[in-house]
Every structure is written in structure tokens, then in C-alpha cells.
């Protein structure tokens, strides 16, 4: 039983690697466009770092948070986002649209499980800029020791799991509400926005919201807490949060899939 599960896991890792290669080859057909999007996203994230640099130059401490902490927050969020949607680009904006437009059939015809297969179907070029930015800013600005570096690598994967899970959850709204792409984008963008500001700014009911309806707490607050404390307990809480968000997404997807009705739309995989 365990051997079978392990084989299946390895098999999906191989599928992931194959899709990564195919998606990257497709993107690199237009090298100029790909590299310009990666560079632009790197610069975009850099603009926010400049904002915080200017802010902390004038106001050195923000409720116990220093510039280094905010840089860690940005690093882990962007790295997680980049890994998530660099590998599973269909988990981003495409998800809700594909369900609403009846494009899931193509993925159902394959012997693989629908969800992971569909998620792996494309890459978002700019996400690679995010991933690169996260790692560069953490290793270049925060200058971690070996333990911190290892913790960051693990946490960036944990955050990627949160992003994928939340992408599935928000995108699955289309099963229940029809074309929910705007609502899905809105929900996700608001969560990301909250996730990029220090949690010390919020308290009371807002903090409850940030660990439930708007899962910014799982995207960045718990991971940064783990980085600050270097505690295994905090890391385990962050991992548990990520698994919870992913599980919520998977349940919403497969429940929704039961309501999915096939149309007579003829479409091709992009």
C-alpha cells in the first residue's frame, strides 16, 4: 500500500517535471516576451521594497517590526507565489474562467487525476520573476545563516501550497456561481494585499478575518513568524495551515465537479 502510494507520488513528480519542461519550452519560443515579463515583475516587486526602504528610513520601527522583517515578509510571499504559479499556472486567474467556459473536459479525458493535471497545464512567466525576487531579496538583504536559509526554502514551498490551495478554492466558485472570475480574482488579490503588510497593523476581528475568510495569515504571517522565531512548532503550525487551505480547495473543487455539466464547446489545450 505504502509502496504504491510512493510510486504514485514519484509518478506525479515526474509529470510535474515534464510539464515544467514543456511549459518553459513553449514560453521560450518568445524569449524576449518571457524575459521582459520576468524582469518587469522583479522590478515591480522591487518598487515595493523601495517603498518600505523609504518608509523605514523615516519611521525606523513599526510596532516592533523592522525593515528586515518586512523584507522577509515580501521574500517569502513572492517566492511562494512564484513557485506556485510558475509550476501550476492554471491555478491562478485561468482556473475560474476555465470552469465557467466548460474547458475541463479536455483534462478529464486523461488517465491522470483532473485537478493536479489541470493545474500543471500552464506557467505564468511573471511568476518566475516573483520567485527570483523572493530568493534574491532574502539571501541578499536578510543575509540568513544556514538554518534560516533552510527554513526559508521550506517555507517558500509551504507558502506555494497555500497559494495553490487558495487558487483552487477561489477558482472553484465558478462551479457554484457561474462565471466567478472577477470575484475569484478580487478575493485572491485582497488576500495577497493584506499578506504584504505587517500583521501588527491589525488586531481583534480583523485578525480573525485574516486567518479565515482572507487567509493572509497562512500566506505570510505564520511563515514569517517561523522565520523570526526559528521554532519548529511555528513551522509545524504554518505547515498545518497550508494543508488546511489546500484541503479546503480540493474539497470545494471535487464537490463542485459533481455539479459540472459538459457543453458542446469544442476547445483545444493551449
Amino acid at each position, binding site marked *: 500500500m505504502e509502496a504504491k502510494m510512493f510510486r504514485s507520488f514519484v509518478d506525479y513528480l515526474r509529470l510535474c517535471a515534464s510539464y515544467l519542461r514543456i511549459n518553459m519550452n513553449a514560453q521560450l519560443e518568445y524569449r*524576449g516576451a518571457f524575459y521582459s515579463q520576468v524582469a518587469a515583475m522583479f522590478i515591480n516587486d522591487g*518598487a515595493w521594497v523601495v517603498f518600505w526602504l*523609504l518608509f523605514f528610513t523615516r519611521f525606523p520601527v513599526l510596532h516592533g517590526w523592522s525593515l528586515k522583517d518586512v523584507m522577509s515578509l515580501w521574500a517569502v510571499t513572492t517566492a511562494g507565489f512564484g513557485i506556485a504559479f510558475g509550476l501550476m499556472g492554471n491555478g491562478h486567474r485561468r482556473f475560474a474562467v476555465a470552469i465557467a467556459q466548460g474547458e475541463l473536459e479536455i483534462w478529464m479525458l486523461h488517465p491522470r487525476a483532473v485537478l493536479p493535471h489541470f493545474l500543471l497545464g500552464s506557467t505564468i512567466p511573471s511568476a518566475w520573476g516573483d520567485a527570483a525576487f523572493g530568493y534574491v531579496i532574502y539571501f541578499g538583504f536578510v543575509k540568513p545563516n544556514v538554518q534560516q536559509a533552510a527554513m526559508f526554502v521550506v517555507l517558500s514551498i509551504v507558502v506555494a501550497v497555500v497559494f495553490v490551495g487558495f487558487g483552487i478554492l477561489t477558482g472553484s466558485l465558478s462551479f457554484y456561481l457561474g462565471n466567478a472570475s472577477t470575484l475569484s480574482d478580487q478575493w485572491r488579490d485582497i488576500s495577497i494585499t493584506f499578506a504584504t503588510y505587517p500583521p501588527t497593523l491589525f488586531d481583534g476581528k480583523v485578525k480573525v478575518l485574516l486567518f479565515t475568510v482572507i487567509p493572509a495569515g497562512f500566506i505570510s504571517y505564520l511563515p514569517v513568524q517561523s522565520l523570526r522565531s526559528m521554532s519548529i512548532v511555528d513551522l509545524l503550525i504554518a505547515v498545518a495551515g497550508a494543508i488546511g487551505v489546500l484541503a479546503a480547495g480540493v474539497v470545494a473543487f471535487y464537490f463542485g465537479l459533481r455539479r459540472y455539466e459538459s457543453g458542446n464547446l469544442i476547445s483545444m489545450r493551449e
Partner: protein
Amino acid sequence: MTITKSASRYLWISYTAARSNLAYSSEVIYRCSFLAVILFIFLRLWKVVYAASGSDRVGGMTLPQMVWYLVVTEAIYLSAPRVASEVDEDVRTGRLAVHLIRPLSYAGGHLSRAMGDRVVRFAINLTVGSMLALALVGPIPITASGLVMFLVTLPAAFLLDFLGMFLIGLCAFWLESTSGLALIYTRTVMMFGGMFLPLAIYPALLQPVLKALPFASMLSAPGVMFVNPSLLLLKESILIQGAAVAVFMLMVGVVQFVAMQRLFSNGG
């Protein structure tokens, strides 16, 4: 007569763009909710800063003024139409050829559409933002002369931003994709224009440089004029905006001329 006829054509384009903008309610809700989130977060941020500073003024503004400044700059920033991507698409799909045979200036047509679009978006953003600011920090004193000064700086701010985005779109003649460049442009406007932080909070060495750049004329100038108007600032803004518009228009003219030399149209 011809001028009136021509102007009415462009006005009609603006009018239809404004009307069609109102039809997409989901996009309006998206923008307004995003504006509300940003205002809420920055209110919390500034509250912490003001409490820690022990002063009722930061960068020459009180907390309510700071929030209202953000309302204006955010309303302007979030009202920007997607001019660059539209021009990019015109070039990439060849739709540009269709535009060129119309009895309209290509840039003028886009400008009319963008302005119609932007005025409606800005009005909605400002209304929603004002209601939120009223609920969060209450009103600030606004004078009639201050309001006039604000309204004087606003059209040039929109025009400048349009010209910047139009230039980025024209780069599609040479680049595979201009989306990256457009993203960098919007972030430059955001950072150097003083969207979140008023320029008075930037390091003293940077302030004169940033004030002289066109980006401050797009966001900071109308924002400050709304919360803290002064004749001196108005004169400075008009001067910088005028010079920036002239330079940007010249650049658009040159780039468009060079770009059109590369245009080949096939029948079909």
C-alpha cells in the same frame, strides 16, 4: 465649422467610452473594493506612525489630510485605462490599419476614449473613497479656491499619464510584448509620483528631483492641491505639467512617425 465638427467627433468617442464604462459593474465593484482595502490598511499604518511620532503632523499633513491625500492619489491611479495594452493589441493584431483609414487621428481617438473612460472611473473612485474617508477620519476643510486649483491640475495629470502609456503601447512596433514595460511604468508612477507616501516624506535630497519629474504632476500635485492647496504650488505644477506635456507630445509624435515607417499593410 470643421473644427467644431471634428471636436464633436472626439467628444462623441469620449461620451460612448464613458457610457460603456458604466456597463461593467463587476469591474467597478472590483476597483472600489480594492480601494477600500488599501485605504483601510494605510489608515492603520498611518495611525501607528502618528501615534509613534507624538506629533499631529507628519510630512506637513494631519492624519485626516493624509488619508484624503491617499483617496485622491489612489482614485487617480486606479482610474487609469489600459491604453498601453490597447495600442499594443492594435499593433500586434494589425487592427491599427483599420484605425488609420478612419477620418480621425489615431492618438486623438485613443485620447478621447481614454479620457471618457477615465473621468467616469475617477468620479466613481473619488465618490467611494470620499465616503470611506468620511467614515474613517471625517471631513477636512476644503475651500472653493482649493477645489478649483485641484480641478486645474487634474486634466493635465490625466493627459500626461495617457501620453506615457501611449508611448509604451507604441513600443509594440519593436518589442515582442509591452506588458512588462507597462508594469514598470505604472510602478514608476506609483513610486516617484508619491501615491502612498507624500513627497514631503521622501529624503530631502530626493524631493527636488522627484518634484521636477513628470510623475509627481500625475499624482502628488493633484493630491496635495486637494488637501493643502496653495497658489505657489499651483504655479509650479502648471509649469512642470506644461513642460512635461510638451516633451511627451513631442516624443509621441516622433515615435509614432518612426513607427509608421515600419507599418506594412496587406490586403485581405
